[in-house]
Structures are given as C-alpha cells and as structure tokens.
C-alpha cells in the first residue's frame, strides 16, 4: 500500500480505483464502468460472443447508438445504402439478442455516441469509459479515464466488463493565461497537437490543466479531450470541478439526493494531488494563441490562420519534410500562400469534436444576418437529436437555413463520410471535425480543420477566414443584418 501516502495524479487515482486484479508480469485487469457501442466496430465482437456461447456480462453498463453510418436526410426512410443498412440492422439484432439498450435512428436519444453519453449524464468523474472508437477520449473532460479500443477489446469488455491493460504514462499539458477573443478550445487543442506532434502523446494520458483549462465550459473541455488521440495519446483528462458538477446535476443518469452528495465527495477527491509528478510536462501560454487551422494531411500540420502555407525546404527533419511535401501535393497548396487566401467549396459544422449546442450557437451568431458565399455548401449536423431539438427551440436552425446552410439530422456525417455526406474528389472543406487525413471526408477530398467560429466566417467569405477579419470586411454584408 505504498501508493496511499504518495501524491497521485488524477489518472493514477482513477486507474488504481479500478484494478480488479494485479499480478507480477501481467497487465492490470481493469474494471470498465461504461461501455459505449456503435454499429461499425461491434458486429464482429457480438459474433465472437455468439460463437463462444458467451453473454454480455453487464448490459446495464453498456449503451449503444447508431451514428457512423446513419443518413442525415430522410431518416424516416430505410437507409439507402444496403451495406450500411445491414450494419445498422446487425446492431439492432445484436442489442435485442444480448439485452443491450440501444438508441436507434429516430429515437430522441440517438446521436454521436460521444455526445449522447455526456448529455445523458452517464459519463461521470472517476469512471472508466471505453468504446470501439478513438474519440472516446472526449469523456475525459469529466475526469473519467476514457479511451478507444479495437473490436477484440469490445468483445472482451462485453464478455467480462474488464480489460487487461498496462498502466499508461502521464503527461501534464498546462495551459496558463487568458485565451484571446475568438480563440476557442478547438484552436487550443490544434495548437497543442502542432506542438507535441501526432506521435508525441503515445503511451500517455494527457491531463489538461492550468487557468485557461479551468475557465473552459464542459463542452469546450470535451472538444479539447476529444482530440487527445490526434496527438497519439491514449486519453485526455481534466480534473472535475464545480463546472463539471453543475453540468451533471439533474441529468437523467446523474445521481440525486444523498447519492449526489456521496458522488460529489468522491469526485472532489480525484484532482491531482499537490506534489504529484507527471512523466512529462508541456506548458502552453494561452494568451499567445490565435485561430488555428490545418494546412496538411495530419492534425499536427496546423498553423495560425494569420500565417502562410509552410515551405517544406525550411523543415529540418527529413521525415517531416517529406511528409509536408506529400501533404502539400495532396492538398494542392503552394508554399507561401496566406492560409486566409485558401478557397473552400464546403463547410462542415458538426462531429463529436464540435457538434454540441455551444458550437452551433457561436456559429449561428456569426451567420446571423449574413449569407453563405455563392458556390459554397455548408452542412450543419447536430451531434445528437437532443442538440438538434435544443437548437430548434432557440431558432438556430432558422439562422442556418436563412443563411443558406443545410440543417441536417444527427450523426457522424461528413467527419468520416461513411454515409452519403462526402466530399467529391478535389473538393476542399473547412471542417470542425478532428481528422484531415487524405480522403477522410470522401475520396480525393481535402480537409482543413477549423473551429466553429472560423467555419462560420469561412462559409460567409468562401475562404479560410477568422471571425475578426469578417467583422472588418463586413461593410457590405452588414447591411443585411
């Protein structure tokens, strides 16, 4: 019991409180408090259970929804793509057979799995949360240890409610100071990834801390933790505090009455102790950040929007240089071009990174009284049905459609283009999603990752634009306001 006396990090506390079994020379067997399931990474896992004659150990700690494949138009009709339909139908059949609760397309609780969990209050501090999806790191915003797993592990959790795992290393990402106006959680995390690289977080749980993080809303914290995987990290976490508790209180699955008090008492013991040490520390000055966009084909290839497309010949590291050359060729960009001069065809507002109500509000605020530029298509895809209904109750849908944007149903949509929402070859998007990989949003498509504010401003001008520049340029369009 050496660990009792020593100061510990948030991640270590959550880990140690979930050890079912620890034995020399073996990974720890960790208990899983919540297992989120969707249609793409689960069918082979359910087949495995069936083949072995096994059941789901804790259907009451398991929750399924349909998100990756689902259409965002005409959702009352059968899914047109027969292969997508088969996959969704397989999930329905598996959930019915194994007793797993499912929120299917058409349900008021359906949506992107990482939006659904938090809004139900089923994601809580100190929990272990897994899902066959790398953006499970989103749930770390609550001080949960949440990480993506593969299908074999999905099967393992279904059967045993545990996972054998070797402890992760810990990295503190400390962000001190005040974020300037128009600089969002998205800009912050893109800057962090550019700083530590797409492999810099490998093997680590990142703990985001410092005054700039403490001031973020829960939704902004989810945006930050969501993209931890883009730095290669297993998970991202933020210590639970009053912001976390306020968000959870009264949610359908949050504890109530004396249970609430017991829960808050435990949650309050979770933040990293003074004197605890991290395996690595990175410090970021929030006041020096500005709207950030990606220019390349991995999320680490980003720069302030006020700068220019980099010149690969100036990059010293040979692997990075050749990656930059390839990226610029794919993106059809010329070194030295101001990033704010890059034209786009498509703007995508949505995803588990930026598809929550606050994201829609800030974008609607910018689009209010303005119009999407000619020749630009803007898709607004709420992260869940609840987000969609909330937006409609606030009239945001009217702002979007009034500006010429398309108001869609909930799902992953163009973030990864498993449904019909895809870029055509050669098309270029400004996207609030999380990955700018080659072809991610559709074969031959080109993606610039941006914040919701930059997405909205870009929709208005048709080229990568910060909201501040929009205000300066407003002259003409302001007349419509």
């Amino acid at each position: 019991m050496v660990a009792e006396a020593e100061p510990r990090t948030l991640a270590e506390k959550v880990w140690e409180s979930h050890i079912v079994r620890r034995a020399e020379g073996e990974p720890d067997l960790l208990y899983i408090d919540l297992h989120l399931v969707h249609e793409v990474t689960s069918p082979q896992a359910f087949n495995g259970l069936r083949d072995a004659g096994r059941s789901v150990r804790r259907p009451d700690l398991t929750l399924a929804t349909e998100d990756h494949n689902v259409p965002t138009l005409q959702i009352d009709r059968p899914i047109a793509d027969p292969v997508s339909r088969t996959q969704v139908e397989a999930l329905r059949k598996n959930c019915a057979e194994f007793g797993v609760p499912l929120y299917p397309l058409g349900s008021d609780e359906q949506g992107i799995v990482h939006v659904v969990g938090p809004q139900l209050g089923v994601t809580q501090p100190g929990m272990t949360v897994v899902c066959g999806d790398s953006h499970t790191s989103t749930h770390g915003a609550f001080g949960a240890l949440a990480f993506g797993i593969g299908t074999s592990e999905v099967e393992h959790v279904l059967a045993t409610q545990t996972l054998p795992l070797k402890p992760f290393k810990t990295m503190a990402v400390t962000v001190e100071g005040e974020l300037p106006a128009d600089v969002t959680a998205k800009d912050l995390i893109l800057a962090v990834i550019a700083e530590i690289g797409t492999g810099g977080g490998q093997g680590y749980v990142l703990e985001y801390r410092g005054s700039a993080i403490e001031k973020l809303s829960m939704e902004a914290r989810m945006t930050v933790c969501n993209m931890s995987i883009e730095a290669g990290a297993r998970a991202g976490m933020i210590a639970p505090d009053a912001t976390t508790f306020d968000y959870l209180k009264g949610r359908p699955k949050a504890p109530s009455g004396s249970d609430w008090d017991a829960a808050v008492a435990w949650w309050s013991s979770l933040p990293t102790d003074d004197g605890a040490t991290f395996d690595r520390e990175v410090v970021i000055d929030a006041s020096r950040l500005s709207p950030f966009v990606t220019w390349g084909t991995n999320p680490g290839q980003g720069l302030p929007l006020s700068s220019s497309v980099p010149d690969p010949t100036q990059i010293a590291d040979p692997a990075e240089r050749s990656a930059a050359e390839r990226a610029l060729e794919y993106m059809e960009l010329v070194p030295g071009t101001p990033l704010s001069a890059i034209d786009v065809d498509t703007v995508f507002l949505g995803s588990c990174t930026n598809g929550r109500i606050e994201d829609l509000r800030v974008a609607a605020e910018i689009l209010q009284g303005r119009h999407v530029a000619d020749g630009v298509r803007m898709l607004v895809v709420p992260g869940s049905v609840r987000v969609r209904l909330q937006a409609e109750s606030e009239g945001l849908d009217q702002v979007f459609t009034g500006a010429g944007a398309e108001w869609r149903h909930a799902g992953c949509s163009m973030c990864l283009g498993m449904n019909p929402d895809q870029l055509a070859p050669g098309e270029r998007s400004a996207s609030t999603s999380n990955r700018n990989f080659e072809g991610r949003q559709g074969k031959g498509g080109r993606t610039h990752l941006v914040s919701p504010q930059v997405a909205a401003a870009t929709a208005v001008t048709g080229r990568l634009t910060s909201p501040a520049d929009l205000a300066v340029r407003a002259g003409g369009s302001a007349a419509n306001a």
Partner: protein
Amino acid sequence: MEKFTTHSGRVLPLRRSNVDTDQIIPAVYLKRITRDGFEDGLFAAWRKDPDFVLNRPQFEGATVLVAGPEFGTGSSREHAVWALQNYGFRVVISPRFADIFRGNSFKGGLLTVELPEGVVERIWALAETDPGAEVTVDLRTRTVDFADESVAFELDEYARWRLLEGLDDVGLTLRHTDSVDAFESARPSWMPRTVAL
C-alpha cells in the same frame, strides 16, 4: 488466435510516415460485419496509382510491410489489422506505431515490430535493390534477420507470450471471474446504469 513463432517473407517497402488508419482502410470499407474480406480496402486510395508500391509486380507476395514512423495513427478500427492480414501480411515493421493500432495488432495475431529508423532504412534499401530478399522475424528470440544483419527488438513479455501461445484474452480473463465478482460487489450503488435490469 493463430500462434506466431517465426516468419520469413519478402518485404513491401512503404516509404511513408504517418500512415494513418484512413489510408490503411478508408471508412467506406468498414461496413462488413465479418472479420474477413477487407483486403479490397487496404490502401484503397493509394492503390489507384499504378506506381504505388503495392501495385509493383516485384513486390507481389510480400508478407512483411516496412513503413515509416507513426504507423496506424488515428482511428481504433481493428479493420486496419484485418485488412493487412486479409491481404497476406504477417508482420509490420515501423520505427513507431500508434498505441491503439499496436494493441489491436497483438489481439489479431499480426506481429508489429518497432525498429530504429536507420534499420528501417536499410531494410527498405535491401528490398528496393533485391525484392526477392527475405526478412526473418523470430518472436522466440526477438530478432529480425536480413542480409547479414541480426537486429534485436523489444516486445513486452506478456504480449509475446500471448502471441507465441495464440491465446485468447477473453478465455484468460474468465479464469478470474471471482475477482470481477468481488470488485463489482464493492462498487458504489449510485454509479450510473444505462438500463434497469
């Protein structure tokens, strides 16, 4: 899972870094509900280019994929491992793998080996000058042999044992059901449930 002890095969030299999971298998190929048939999706976008290394006849039948650093970044899709295996690869060598991809590879019996960039460079050079040259990856001795070199690699002892024995994790964990029962009985009653049973 099939046991892995040693494998000798020819090399596919993939001179790229940050080979992400969307390149290994794009999302539109993830819709199958079986563990096989994913070979069509492997590097689907890059394969459109007739010059892409996978399309070059001299590398046909290669079973050891050798790539640059940060292989497998991005998604948790185990389909990336299945696509490589379905196509015929048994081993992937890279200076560094993304965590989730690496974990998935061991679950499925695809051996992923981390070797320094200099060694990867020499294996690439060997394959490019002599596409018929074989590399031997021996999990028992934890060595990679090529040309006149024998290079040791590191692998967690537990992962190595599982691969050598071809063990199924679920089966191993189910031996400890008593420990899971005990843990569950001590969990706070207020912790959330997704459905009343």
